[in-house]
């Protein structure tokens, strides 16, 4: 839920505003609300999550009501309404991936990181969650890491350990 105490001031850079402008030009005049989802992705990639202040700023830019942004941000599963780890490991937990070991892998990640689903590690580096089908069912188990949504296929415990260690060294 949106919290008043999370309303830290937000300023978007001119470079980010330029990207917003480029997106808005894709739609007919007066239909700038179509830019809402792509713009929220850009803001989240920049800030790591969507605070109420950031969403208000987006609403002002698009000349729409704040609530129109909140209802979209809270509907779609990709938008984070609270801070996350720098790296969010999203593991596909749907049928075909589970047939080849996704649930076991999620248990391993929980043990490895020492935090439960949707919690952040003490160093702020990681959080993890199970997500619904990532459309790579033949190459499971799979996981992705935003904001680039880099994709990892045919995973096992060893590969996940290596991936986490690589991210720690970055």
């Amino acid at each position, binding site marked *: 839920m949106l919290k008043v105490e999370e309303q830290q001031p937000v300023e978007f850079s001119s470079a980010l505003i330029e990207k917003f402008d480029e997106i808005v030009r894709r739609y007919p005049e007066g239909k700038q609300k179509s830019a809402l989802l792509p713009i929220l992705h850009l803001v989240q990639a920049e800030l790591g999550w969507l605070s109420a202040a950031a969403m208000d700023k987006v609403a002002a830019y698009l000349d729409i009501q704040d609530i129109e942004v909140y209802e979209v941000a809270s*509907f779609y599963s990709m938008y984070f309404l609270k801070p996350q780890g720098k790296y969010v490991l999203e593991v596909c937990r749907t049928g075909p991936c589970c047939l080849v070991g996704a649930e076991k892998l999620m248990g391993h990640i929980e043990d490895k990181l020492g935090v439960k689903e949707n919690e952040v590690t003490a160093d702020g580096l990681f959080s993890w969650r199970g997500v619904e089908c990532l*459309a790579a069912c033949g190459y499971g188990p799979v996981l992705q890491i935003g904001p680039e949504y880099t994709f990892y296929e045919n995973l096992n415990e060893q590969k996940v350990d290596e991936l986490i260690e690589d991210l720690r060294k970055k």
Partner: protein
Amino acid sequence: MARKLLLEHINVPGINTLDVYRQKGGYRAVEKALKTLTPDEVVEEVKKSGLRGRGGAGFPTGMKWSFLAKPEGVARYLVCNADESEPGTFKDRYLMTYIPHALIEGMIVSSFALGANTSYIYVRGEMMPQIRILERAIAEAKNAGFLGKNILGSGYDLELYVQPGGGAYICGEETALLESLEGKRGNPRIKPPFPAIAGLYGCPTVVNNVESIAAVVPIINDGGDEYAKIGIGRSTGTKLISASGNLVRPGVYEIELGLPVEEFIYSDEWCGGIANGKRLKATVAGGSSVPVLPANLTLKLANGDPRLMSYESLSEGGFATGTMMGSGGFIAFDEDQCIVRNTWNFSRFYHHESCGQCSPCREGTGWMEKVLHRLEYGHGKMSDIDLLVDVSKKIEGNTICPLGDAAAWPVASAIRHFRDEFEWHVNEPVKSLSTNYGLANYAEPIAKAVTAEN
């Protein structure tokens, strides 16, 4: 070797680039359509091809195009549905990743046929790498004069954009997709009016799946009649099948429609059989939303004839003994897999993805998930099985969009064909725990809890 129309050059190095794609004959369809055909003639070729929507519905594409309203002075739109998120289906991701120009070329030809001057490819947001691939390919096509103003001197203008979704399976439903593209929650619209009359921004709009649009390219290159010669009956052409689960070689395959299911599963040319020498227990032939079939009905029709990979053969016998082609998401379950657990998993998916607009879906999917969860984890009652059937019937056909049906069918079909397995979970709650899913860490404490409770 089976004939391939979409994936023929998939292994050619650099086929994702414009240069290599053109070396392999790419953009011939754009040149042919824009220089030698009228938009109506393109529509006619697609009608002759018999192409049916490859996203799941199977509705004839040419007929869908011909419904498009054409009022004077009103914009028309083509929107590509690349919101691939049906469990078991991953063909569109594959196509966009490895041969993006096939989709872009199809978008240009299709937009020309429909009189659209602005088109969008709505890609599920999780596919950011594919979004970047498509944007790069669009830039290449534009630089080469295949997009923009006066394409190839034809007088036809087209701008093409990629729109990322936000993570919602429901946006694969065409009206929910349009709502999302307009910057709103993905709540499906009541039809009519259909998008062909009032779609994006209230304008006439066609929404087609990635594979359907890509298939327009070989149809225009070779002609609709040639395309219609491939396949069987009203299932014409080729189809991408996403194969997953307990198969020796899961992956994306292009088949000629009419291939026997048994050959698809066991032949070395395709999936190579069931992994680890196990026996086939069941399949989901067209993505998680279609009814599950036990092995015997997967391979044979009720009359003993071989079942084929075609729209008609897969649905032969209705839901009593058949299933659906759907999106072509083919999931194989070996003899060790637990039907109850898998049904619970799919049910959780549909509960999670229900947009919440219709009460039967919003409440019913959650109810089914909870009942299946307690059956799987050893706390079920025998009456739960009939309760599930009852709830599934109350959802089916009672929602604005097909997500309700998609949630109901896997549950109803699993109980129809595997009722004894559900009863076993009630009678033997400890023995039936699904350790085969890699839940060894969890099975012991659950077993203790169940034993203590009983």
